[in-house]
């Protein structure tokens, strides 16, 4: 049966900060445009996870009256700390010695999910149609090779692809312009980058995996407005990463950890590094006696402009971290994502009205403040490939002394899936057992995410070669999927006699972080979108 189709002026994939900004800006510029947003989460915000210390610059431009209109942006940053952690000690780094990009006194501690819900209400009031629970699963092309729109996933198929009772065919959404705003490592964005060679001449994209937990603590442990970052322990000098600890409203602490996915040791488990980090005495004292009320993880972009692909193609734009607009040294991406979305809207209006080519996006973005700050920040992350110490020294020079104007650009040399060394050549890491108070296991953590996928549906974590995990990846790398997946989706099960290992994919636990799609050494795991409404149900992450 042919699929039904709906015609829109603009179809947006993903109701995150960038996609919602595009939608709002479009309707502000032309209220008559038909704009819709597809969102794979069960509701807007359900798949949003971010620190988040928010810079309001883009929001000031988009909705200047956000304060009067009750945006969920309340807690102003009032104090900042930066700690270097050793195994048993910590050293405070004077904040006046921090590069200005890492100063946050004008910023706010927010929940990005809450902000997105608020933006979605704004968008709906302007007439944008938002469809949560409807993932875009397919890109549609016109005969001339340009993007025609997207199709939503068929719902109600069983694991073998047969129709179940409640089967509902997917449908086509055609747009004059389609905007891809899926966030980091969007599964359609990845296909577009390949098809149109959008990353030609760019460094390979760099990613990190970010964890976040929300804790409720006592008054004594809480200092609303405090922003703290750490570097050092438990990571070694060669592994890029660090923590954030934000004291938000309602006696909550947002605590998290980011680890560069260019790590080399296949024995490393990002989840366990995060859990171990919390047991450091400088951190533990803030959490002790408190209660962990939320957990989540999500991959994020670290590549900067060296890795930023072309963001336009015939019929479509790629925005936010679907392209990769996060500012790594600032540890922020919401404001640049929103700005990229605003520019997308301006570009689309010109395209629809004056038939101007979408390629004007490039020059518009290049002349924006978002591009300028990304340019200034470009050398920080690559310098850390020389190790933490040299990276910090270089960043000091580059960001404090020269303020990002050094006349060269360091390149990223490897994609993250190429950096693992063979398991036999790297030290095993013995992680302490979780105590169930400060540190936890994966099972109790995924439980907090509210993750569920309808049973008996096609597996959305696909293997290009089903025999590879056991025949190659297990032998060479001790199958790192067992460890890089933050919720234990991938397991190697063995018989009692330790023989005949079997690779198991518990896809119903997947929290859509995309780490497997990025880090698998042979790029053998393909993340495709599962049935709508599946995945985590984050509250105020």
């Amino acid at each position, binding site marked *: 049966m042919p699929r*039904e189709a*709906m015609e829109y002026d603009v179809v947006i994939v993903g109701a995150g900060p960038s996609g919602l900004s595009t939608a709002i800006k479009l309707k502000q510029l032309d209220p008559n445009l038909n704009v819709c947003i597809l969102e794979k989460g*069960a*509701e807007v*915000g*359900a798949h949003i996870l971010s620190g988040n210390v928010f810079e309001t610059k883009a929001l000031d431009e988009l909705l200047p009256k956000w304060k009067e209109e009750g945006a969920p942006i309340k807690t102003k940053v009032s104090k900042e700390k930066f700690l270097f952690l050793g195994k048993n000690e910590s050293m405070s780094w004077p904040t006046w010695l921090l590069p200005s990009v890492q100063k946050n006194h004008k910023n706010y501690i927010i*929940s990005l*999910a*809450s902000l997105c*819900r608020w933006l979605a209400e704004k968008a709906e009031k302007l007439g944008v*149609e938002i*469809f949560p629970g*409807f993932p875009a699963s397919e890109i549609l092309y016109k005969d001339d090779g340009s993007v025609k729109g997207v199709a*939503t996933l068929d*719902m*109600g198929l069983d694991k073998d692809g047969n129709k*179940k*009772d*409640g089967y*509902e*065919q997917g*449908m086509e*959404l055609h747009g004059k312009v389609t905007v891809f705003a899926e966030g980091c490592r969007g599964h359609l964005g990845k296909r577009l980058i390949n098809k149109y060679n959008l990353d030609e001449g760019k460094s390979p994209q760099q990613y990190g995996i970010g964890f976040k937990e929300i804790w*409720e603590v006592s008054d004594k442990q809480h200092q609303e407005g405090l922003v703290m970052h750490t570097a050092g322990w438990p990571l070694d000098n060669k592994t890029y990463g660090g923590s954030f600890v934000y004291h938000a409203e309602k006696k909550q602490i947002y605590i998290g950890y980011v680890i560069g996915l260019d790590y080399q040791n296949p024995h490393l488990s990002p989840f366990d590094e995060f859990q171990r980090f919390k047991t450091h005495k400088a951190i533990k004292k803030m959490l002790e006696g408190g209660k962990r*009320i939320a957990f989540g993880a999500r991959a994020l972009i670290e590549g900067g402009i060296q890795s930023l692909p072309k963001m336009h193609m015939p019929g479509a734009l790629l925005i936010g971290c679907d392209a990769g607009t996060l500012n790594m040294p600032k540890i922020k991406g919401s404001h640049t994502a929103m700005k990229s979305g605003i520019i997308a809207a301006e570009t689309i209006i010109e395209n629809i009205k004056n038939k101007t080519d979408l390629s004007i996006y490039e020059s518009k973005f290049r002349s924006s403040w978002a591009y300028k700050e990304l340019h200034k920040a470009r050398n920080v992350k690559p310098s850390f490939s020389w190790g933490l110490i040299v990276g910090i020294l270089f960043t000091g020079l580059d960001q404090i002394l020269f303020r990002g104007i050094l006349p060269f650009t360091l390149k990223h040399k490897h994609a993250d899936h190429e950096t693992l060394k063979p398991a036999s050549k790297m030290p095993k890491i013995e992680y302490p057992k979780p105590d169930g108070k400060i540190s936890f296991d994966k099972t109790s953590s995924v*439980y*907090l995410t*509210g*993750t*569920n996928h309808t049973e008996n549906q096609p597996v959305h974590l696909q293997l290009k070669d089903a025999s590879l995990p056991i025949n190659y990846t297990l032998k060479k790398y001790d199958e790192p999927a067992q460890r890089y997946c933050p919720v234990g989706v991938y397991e190697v099960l063995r018989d009692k006699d330790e023989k005949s290992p079997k690779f198991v994919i518990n896809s119903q636990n997947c929290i859509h972080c995309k780490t497997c799609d990025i880090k698998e050494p042979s790029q053998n795991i393909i993340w495709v979108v599962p049935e*709508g409404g599946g995945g985590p*149900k984050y*509250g*105020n992450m």
Partner: protein
Amino acid sequence: MKILVAVKRVIDYNVQIRVKEDGTGVHTDNVKMSTNPPDDNAVEEAVKLKESGKAKEVIAVTIGEEKAQETVRKALAVGVDRGIHVKTDSYVEPLGVAKILKKIVEKEKPDLVFMGKQAIDDDCNQTGQMLAALLGWSQGTFASKIQLKDKIVQVIREVDEGLETIEINLPAIVTCDLRLNEPRYASLPNIMKAKKKPIEQIFVKDLGVNVTNRIQQLKVEEPPKRKGGIKVKTVAELVSKLKNEAKVI
């Protein structure tokens, strides 16, 4: 034949419930809400009866705050014809709900009322039964199969002993079990069409019913944490522990 389906907005079944520190209830801020799962089955069954030509009109009704409308909207998106939202910002006990529904039944004069067997938030499992009593109608509860015959409805009930088949006269109340059917997904065009279908809004105070709560809630607290088990070496040790520590034998 006209069918009225009652739907309730509850915290989504996947969400981990958090009890408020002061013991007054559970957190609902920024929490994903959904239609009570067996209510979805009730809606599905009514829509199926309409599709097979046995029912002419299906009406969905909900009681609650402004956002409770979402559950009616969802029912409209899968084939319900129109909706009623009885607005109130306060908690209504099952008896109050039954009284409100009675008023709606008197107004709409349906032949059948469907609803979920119980709501997953308070697990009361009372509303259907109370409504049947107030109206003096027949009731078929925990239905896992419903068959309409002339002026009677055959209901297969999920009971402790197995399955019980009963025949009841119309008009009747049927409360639905999760095994009744598999609710369909709403399609995008139907969600859009649903936005244009009418939802009548009625205020509780205009119905002239007394919905004062009769139950005083003292405290809401989390169930005690489960303690880890231990391994015993011998049967004798097990018996001794059961006798002296657990004091169950």
